[in-house]
């Protein structure tokens, strides 16, 4: 009985504490919410302004349809399954190009970072190829591969290769030499040294490369799909242009923006998982 009474007293005390501290708690929650949505306030305001200007007739619908019109067009495309199909095709292309180009870039970056011999023989070539804008190869790529999947894969892989290669090379070459010396003195085998010292040390730089690569990945894919494709978001936008469906064109552009943001968020999550040790990624201790 007394226990129950005490429990009741304690819970009353807690409730009391809650009401007296209510304002600061609410303020803290509000601050957390504000932090989460802050980045979206400006886009939302712009969309609202755009809708308003369309409604009053300031923007003609055949120049730029209202956001609501685009949303309903998007809904139609989503219901028919076209949008999902094109998005899936584009995403698959983008990711397979990223994987192929990323792995090749990673391998060359690591090899040239570790071995002077390898760097002497390949770096000059790679730097020369890098200075050719890879989109300039589109005519050649169409001649080689037509408008098949290989063409897109080749261009995306080529585009993402260089940022990943250069940043991996830089990361491997700037790993703290004192740590490498420590690893050697403590008897690490070359493989252990690579796995426990060199790769984790190069990882922050590799992530910088990945972020650059994601931007180039979308850019390349969209250009390639716009010029030569029979499916995908770029193709969808081009086809819509031919039928003067401005709402679908704008929809495609908005989807690019969202996909870019999504890729960035995913990289951020990956960074937090892999770089937990890094002071820049640690939560400040209270």
């Amino acid at each position, binding site marked *: 009985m007394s226990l129950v009474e005490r429990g009741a007293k304690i819970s009353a005390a807690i409730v009391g504490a809650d009401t007296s501290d209510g304002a600061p708690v609410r303020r803290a929650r509000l601050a957390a919410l504000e932090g989460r949505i802050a980045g979206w306030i400006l886009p939302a305001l712009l969309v609202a302004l755009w809708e308003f200007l369309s409604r009053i007739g300031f923007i003609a619908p055949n120049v730029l349809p209202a956001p609501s019109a685009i949303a309903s067009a998007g809904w139609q495309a989503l219901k028919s399954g076209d949008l999902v199909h094109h998005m899936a095709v584009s995403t698959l292309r983008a990711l397979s190009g990223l994987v192929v180009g990323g792995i090749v870039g990673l391998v060359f970056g690591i090899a040239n970072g570790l071995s002077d011999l390898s760097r002497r023989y390949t770096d000059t070539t790679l730097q020369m190829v890098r200075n050719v804008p890879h989109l300039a190869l589109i005519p050649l790529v169409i001649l080689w591969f037509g408008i098949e999947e290989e063409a897109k894969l080749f261009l995306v892989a080529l585009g993402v290769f260089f940022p990943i290669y250069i940043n991996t090379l830089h990361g491997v070459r700037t790993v703290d030499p004192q740590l490498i010396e420590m690893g050697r003195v403590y008897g690490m085998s070359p493989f252990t040294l690579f796995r426990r010292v060199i790769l984790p040390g190069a990882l922050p730089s590799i992530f910088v490369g990945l972020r650059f690569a994601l931007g180039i990945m979308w850019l390349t894919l969209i250009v390639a799909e716009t010029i030569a494709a029979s499916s995908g978001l770029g193709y969808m936008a081009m086809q819509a242009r031919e039928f003067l469906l401005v709402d679908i064109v704008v929809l495609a552009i908005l989807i690019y923006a969202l996909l870019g943001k999504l890729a960035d968020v995913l990289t951020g999550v990956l960074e937090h998982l892999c*770089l937990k*040790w*890094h002071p820049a990624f640690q939560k400040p201790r209270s």
Partner: protein
Amino acid sequence: MTLAAAPSSFVPASAATHGLGVAFERLGRQFGDKRVLERVDLAIPAGQFVAVIGKSGCGKSTLLRLIAGLDRPTAGRILFEGPHDGEAIRIMFQEPRLLPWERVLANVEVGLPALVTGEARHQRARAMLAEVGLADRAGEWPAVLSGGQKQRVALARALASGPRLLALDEPLGALDALTRIEMQGLVERIWLDQRFTAILVTHDVSEALALADRVILIDEGHVALDLDVPLPRPRRRGSAELAELEGRILARLFGG
């Protein structure tokens, strides 16, 4: 030169040592035209605590790097007393050199022989952390530790394999004065317990005298002074004997 030299009189004859003795025979190291070490003849018996001091650039760190196998002599040779494996010699650097992407416990495990695996590996590393007084920080990232704590983790890592010779390259040089005194006590306690051969490079004469059985002064690549410190431990800081020895060393360093 006899390697199995009898322990000096101030080391109790009964003290069991598994330390590794080392001797230098006309040892020299040259970088280009610059002779950093020249004709160094020295024998360090097993289990002795030797401090090597000298002005910066005198070649004392080079001597340590030669012992640890990080560098090769250009003249003469280094002789170890009997065979030894890779884990017998450990070096502790001036910087902690912890892997920032591994937790404190995993960093200590770097020092363990590869043969120790699984749970035994964690246990031995935990025991070493307890030895340096950081048992409760095993799960932390190195970045959150203070300078003195990082250097203690580095000490635990160096001692994890039970080395027979520990080379210390100014490991306390970057610490503040109070932390340094605390660390000196820790190093001395562990050395008294394990009796490995310790070679401490330092530019701090009082630190050398607080810890070492023998102080070797290196000047312009030569051994300029080889001084026994026959004082009982633990040594009282600021005692008259220490002050007298310190005066002699400083006089030799700056008096010419």
